[in-house]
C-alpha cells in the first residue's frame, strides 16, 4: 500500500446512494477488523443512509449491510 500526499477520499465523503471501491484502510490497527467482517481492498461500497444524529452510517459492502460510526468509516480510503 503506497502512501500519497494528495487528498484521500474516504467512505465518509460518500453521499447517500453513492458507490465506490475500497482502496485501503487508514488505520493499521483497525484494518484487520475490517477484513474479518468482509470489508477489504477492492470491495464495492455504497452509503445507504446516515443514522439519527448523523454519527452512524449504513453501508452496503459487497451487497452486505454494515453499520459503522463516522470515525470508523473515516478509516476506509476509497479508490475514487
Amino acid at each position, binding site marked *: 500500500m503506497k502512501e500519497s500526499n494528495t487528498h484521500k477520499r474516504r467512505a465518509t465523503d460518500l453521499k447517500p446512494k453513492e458507490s465506490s471501491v475500497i482502496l485501503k484502510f487508514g488505520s*493499521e*490497527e*483497525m*484494518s*484487520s*477488523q*475490517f*477484513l*474479518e*467482517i*468482509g470489508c*477489504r481492498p477492492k470491495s464495492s461500497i455504497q452509503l*445507504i*443512509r*446516515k*443514522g*439519527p*444524529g*448523523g*454519527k*452512524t452510517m*449504513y453501508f*452496503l459492502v459487497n*451487497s*452486505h*449491510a*454494515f*453499520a*459503522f*460510526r463516522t470515525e*470508523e468509516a473515516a478509516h476506509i480510503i476509497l479508490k475514487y
Partner: protein
Amino acid sequence: MGSDEQNLKIALIGNPNAGKTSVFNRLTGLNQTVGNFPGVTVDKKSGTYPLPDGNKAVITDLPGTYSLYPNSSDERIVLETLLNQDGSSYPDLVLYVADANNLERHLVLLTQIMDFGVPIVLLLNMLDVANSEGKTVDENQLSIKLGIPVVKVNGRTGEGTEAIGPVILQMEGVNCDPFLNVEPFAYELEQEVKKMFGFTNNYRALLTAHNYKNLDFISAADTGRMDHLVSELKFNSVGLQFDEIMARYDQLHPIMEAMVVHTKEDDETKTAKADKILTHPFWGSLIFLATLFVIFQAIFAWASYPMDLIDGGMTWLIDAAKNVLPAGLLSDFITDGILAGIGGIVIFIPQITILFILVSLLEEVGYMSRAVFLSDTLMRKFGLNGRSIVSLISGAACAVPAIMSTRTISNWKERLITIFVTPFISCSARIPVFAVLVAFAVPDKTVGGLFNLQGLVMMGLYLLGVIAALGSAWVMKKILKSKDRSFLMMELPTYKMPYWKNISITVVQKVGVFITNAGKIILIISMILWVLASFGPGDNLKNIEEQTRTEYAQQSFSDTELDNIVAAKKIEGSYAGILGKQIEPAIKPLGFDWKIGIALITSFAAREVFISTMATIYSVGSDGDAESVMEKMRQERHADTGELVYTSATAFSLLIFYVLAMQCMSTLAIVKRETNSWTIPFIQLVYMTGLAYILSLITYQILQ
C-alpha cells in the same frame, strides 16, 4: 462409552449470524445444559447428540466470532478453547457453520481452524436464502478444494442435518491438512514458541505469539519470556494479523469464484426495502419507540391475566394445604414459609416469559442490530454503546441476563458503565411492589379522559429509573478514563422470518435460569424469614403470648381478634422484629417503621420478597387469609403516634426507594462474575442505595 469423559467432544463454531444456534437446536433439541467454561464467565451451552453408531457426542455451541483475533470476551472463548490443547474443552472435532450467502467471508475463520489440524466438517447453511438471491454453491467441488467434508444443511427446517452423524463418524480422528502455510509470517518466533510450550503446530505457535497476554493458561513467568521474545524478534502483531487474513482471502478468492455461481443480477432485496423505513432517522426511531411501547404494554397488560390466575391458584393451594395439614409448626412452615416462597417465584414467570419472547423475537428477525444502529449516537452521549440498548431493554425483565448480554460490548469502559447502570432500569421484580404501593398512594381514576392515573404514575417510576441510569452513566463517563478504542462496526443481518422453535428453546432456557437462580434465593429467604418471624430469643415469644393473653383477658375481644393481637405482639418480639427495630432509627426519616424495616432487610436479597415478607409478617400466627394482608397494611398505625403507617408520603418514599436501591443479590453476584472483583458490586450497592436513601428522604419530607 457412556461417561462424559469418553463422549466425543464437538465444538460448533461459526461467524455471528451464521445460523449456528438454529443448527445447534436442531441437533440437540431440548437436551441442552448451560454451564460455564472453566475460569471464565461466558455461558457454555452444551447438548448431547446421538451418533449413528449408538454412542453420544457432546456438542458445545461456542460464541460467534469472525476470526481468531478476538475483540470481546465472548470471542476470546473460541481462541482459548482451540489453543489450550490440554484443556477440558478442547474438541475432538469441529462442526463449522457457514452462511452460504456470504461464503468467502465465512470461510476465513474456517481456514484458521483448519490450520490447527483438528478434524473439521463444514456445514453449509442458509442455501435457501442464497438460492433465492440467485447464488448456488457446488459443495462437491468445495469439499475437494478445501479437503474437508461439506454437508448442506438448513438449520431452520432441519433439512440435511441427518447427514451430519455419518460424516462425524467418518471424520473422527482424521486430522485435516492446514489451509495456509503460516511458517513464513514469523518463522523464528514460531520456532521459539513451539520449543517453549512443546507445540508441534505452527499456527498454534503463531496465535500464541499474537495473544499470549490474554491467555489464562499461560503463566506469568511464560508471559515474561514471551515479552522478551516478541520485542527481541520485533514481532509486529497488528501488521501480521492483516497480512495473514489478507493471505487467506487471496487463497480463498479463486476457489470461491469457481464454486459460487451467480444466476441473477443484484436487485433491491427485501431487507433493503424494509430498512428504508426501519433505519430511517425519523421513521425508524419512531418505530423503535413504538416497539418499546408494545414491549412494556405486553409486560403490564398481557401478563396480568396469567398472573392473576397464578395468584389465585397459589392462594387456593395455601388455603387447601392449611385445611388438609394438621395445625402446627410444620404446617405453618409449609404454607407460610415454603408455599408462600414458591408463589413469589412463579408469579414472575408470565412477565419474564413475555419479555424474553419479545426480546428473542427481535433478535431472531434481525431487528436488534437496527435498534443498536439507531441508538448508538444517543447512547454515546452517556458513555454507553449502541449495544447497551439491548442490555437496557432486557433489564426491564431482569438485570441478570441483561448484564450477561453486555459481553458483546468490546470497550471495557462502555461495558462497565452499562453493567453499572442497568440495575436502575425497573425490572419485573419491582412490578408487584410498585403495583401494591401505587394502589395505596394513587387514586384509581382517569385523567384527561384517557389515561389511568395509576398507570401514569407507574410510567413515571419507570422513567425515573431510566433517568437515574442515563444520569449515572453520564457521571461515570466524566469520571472514568479509558484508552480503549470504542467501536460499533457491526453487520446488519438480513431480515428473517422468526423460527419459533429457536425462540421457544431460548425462552425455556432463560426462564429456567431465572427460576433456578433467583428462585433459589427467593425460596431460601422466604424460609429464613419465616423462621426469624416465628422464633425469638429464649422464651420470649411464649412469655409475650402469656402476658398478652392475661392483659387482654378482661377486655371483650373475640378469639380471632385476640389471636391477631397476640400474633402482632409475637412478631414484634421475634428475631425479625428485633432486627427491624434496630434499623428503625435509620429509616424513620424516610417514613418507614420497623415492619417495613424487616421487608427492606429481606428485600436486599431480592426486591420481590417485599410483598411476601409483608404477607408473612402480617399473617404468621394469625388465621392468615391472604387478601386481608393488604387490608391490614391499610389499617396499620404507628404505635407511638397512632397515625397511619401507609400514608401517600410513606408509599411514595418507599416507591422511590425501590426504584433506585440495589436490592438484588443475584445482580450483585452476576456483576462480581462479570467484572471479576467485588469492587464494582460494592460501589454499586453503596451508590444505588445511598441515592435511594437521599431521594426517599426528600420525597417523604416534602409530602409529609
